[in-house]
């Protein structure tokens, strides 16, 4: 049913349809509306779930870890400092192969403390073994929550997933969204069947000490599973379209990319602005396009290569940077092209950190910059007069 909803409410409504038995979260702006909505649903008897008000995000992640280990579907949401505090637990959840979904309201990390949007928080936990999806709008957030549960709980995968939505821009933005029927969701997302669980009838030990004799194999298996998830994401996205009658591209959305001479690669809500600029520039006769990356982990390297091999000039536009190096997506994309036949010029741009507005004009300038020399990590819109030596 189509409704006009706030992004956080869209998430809460979608999560309710997924029937999590345990929800644990800790307040942090701009995530808080999501769990407030869920708490109200539980209080109103509209959602049969144990809502656990924890004392930290570390414990929020640990509570959902325990719940899934005991065989129950679980949900959490967080942002920024909260996600960083969860980081230790997230690596552990992934290593223990426990599927669950965390929604991250993307926000800058301290210092300086800043509650506005960028992607530094979630890309920082990219190495954990948690699937990562980035949404452009609230419909996509909702759809990705469903997809994330479905893929993560697939017995072949059994991994946690992080669904990323831009703080404020999406969490507090109102949009018309199509909230599916419970029947449809139940069909797409059958009851959770854990691969292992804590059960006195069949006592298992979970979380063994892994000596050098076996540790490497468990990590190798995790990497292999991550790569296998690419296939599972593809089939889940087909199933998604079949059940919900709406497309959810598995890895990326290509926008006017086919004959593009210049393209931007970006994640999240900024894709909306880029599409507008692409439309305008196309009208001016400039062959520009966009690749909106949805699945960041696992990184769909081959699919991206195929999608971009004929674009001679590519800009990776990121709301994050690995300090002292490059933007994380830039690095991954460069690696995907390394040693391949096609050798486009790939440049990196850092933009919109800590909620700095990304204007159409900035996007236009990125396209223009692409005509110049290759740049590995160019900061856009920096007021140099404020930066003292």
């Amino acid at each position, binding site marked *: 049913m189509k409704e006009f909803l706030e992004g956080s409410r869209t998430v809460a409504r979608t999560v309710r349809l997924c029937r999590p038995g345990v929800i644990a979260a800790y307040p942090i702006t701009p995530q808080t509306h999501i769990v407030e909505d869920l708490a109200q649903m539980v209080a109103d008897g509209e959602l049969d779930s144990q809502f656990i008000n924890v004392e930290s995000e570390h414990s929020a992640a640990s509570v959902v870890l325990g719940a899934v280990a005991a065989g129950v579907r679980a949900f959490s949401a967080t942002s920024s400092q909260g996600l960083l505090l969860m980081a230790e637990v997230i690596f552990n959840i992934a290593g223990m192969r426990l599927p669950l979904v965390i929604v991250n309201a993307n926000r800058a990390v301290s210092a300086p403390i800043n509650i506005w949007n960028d992607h530094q928080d979630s890309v920082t936990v990219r190495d954990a073994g948690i699937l990562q999806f980035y949404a452009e709008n609230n419909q996509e957030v909702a759809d990705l929550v469903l997809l994330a549960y479905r893929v993560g709980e697939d017995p072949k995968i059994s991994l946690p997933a992080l669904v990323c939505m831009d703080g404020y821009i999406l969490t507090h933005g109102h949009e018309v969204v199509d909230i599916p029927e419970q029947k449809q969701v139940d069909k797409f997302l059958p009851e959770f069947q854990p691969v292992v669980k804590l059960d006195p009838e069949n006592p298992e030990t979970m979380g063994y*000490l892994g000596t050098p004799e076996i540790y490497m194999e468990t990590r190798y298996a995790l990497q292999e599973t991550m790569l296998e998830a690419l296939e599972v994401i593809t089939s889940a996205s087909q199933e998604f379209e079949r059940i919900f009658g709406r497309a959810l591209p598995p890895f990326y959305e290509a926008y006017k990319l086919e004959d593009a001479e210049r393209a931007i690669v970006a994640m999240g809500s900024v894709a909306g602005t880029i599409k507008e600029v692409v439309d305008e520039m196309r009208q001016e006769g400039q062959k520009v396009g966009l690749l909106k990356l949805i699945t960041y982990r696992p990184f769909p390297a081959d699919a991206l290569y195929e999608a971009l091999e004929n674009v001679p000039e590519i800009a990776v536009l990121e709301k994050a940077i690995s300090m002292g190096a490059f933007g994380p997506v830039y690095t991954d994309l460069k690696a995907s092209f390394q040693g391949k036949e096609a050798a486009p010029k790939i440049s990196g741009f850092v933009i919109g950190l800590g909620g700095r507005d990304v204007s159409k004009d900035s996007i236009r300038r990125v396209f223009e910059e692409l005509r110049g020399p290759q740049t590995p990590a160019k900061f856009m819109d920096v007021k140099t007069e404020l930066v003292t030596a």
Partner: protein
Amino acid sequence: MTEHLFSRGHTACAGCGQALGARLVVDAAGRNCIITNNTGCLEVFSTGFPQSAWQVPWIHSLFENAAAVASGVEAALRYQGKLDKIKVIAQGGDGSTSDIGFGALSGMVERGHDVLYVCYDNEAYMNTGIQRSGLTPFDSNTTTSPPGKASFGNWRPKKPLPQIVAAHGAPYVATASVGFPRDVERKVKKALSIEGPKYIQLFVPCPLGWRHEARLTYEVARLVVETGLFPLVEFEDGELTRVRQIKPKPVEEYLKLQGRFSHLFRDEAGKAEIAKIQTIADANIKRFGLVAEKKEKAKESKKQEKASKS
């Protein structure tokens, strides 16, 4: 022979009090329980893949989160309607419990989860090589509180964790020692018969870290109680309801068995330190009424009688 629920497949040191304690706890709890375990010696020596000493469902996640993982397990069981049949136990060492995992423990108790938390108190971070924790006793020699020209070792007394948890309003809090195995069993069973958050702090000697002979574990675990340094007490709903009475022995008898206190037996200055430790024991005896008042009073009055006669 009864089958133990914590048995073959562990690699604890000879005389390890924690291995003894774990067996007492899980045997008393029985098969229908789920255990969550912090990182530490117990986790390391009981679950080296593919060996596990646990015959009950058991999970280790991280160093500081067993209380939170247990909260999640409990919530899941509640959701499934299985909480009446399955008991949840969280456990960790003194370091994970009193320091890094203290917030998680406090949260679990404050939220009222139906979980028994067992703190295996060997009075230091043993798994990483005997560093000081918030439950390391006064003047103890650890690798991060070494005695030297300017120090007698650990400069602070033990954090009063049982009282702190009791002050949360936990329905049941107790201390126990592996030197009194029947008492440990009774307390575990009692705790598990009560709904809500429970906490047991179990004294478990560590021959390696405390530098005492492996055969002395039991004796050390009794002496700590008999000197008044580790009172065996029970709190219900925050009120002290029961204590194990003692005929106090001087603290030297306990201290002298352990290398971690040997620096106190070298000179006069050390003697003065031992007197301070005696003060800690005396304060415990007074605070918790460890010596039967009636007998004490009777003795006192007899003394006075004698004095007045002579």
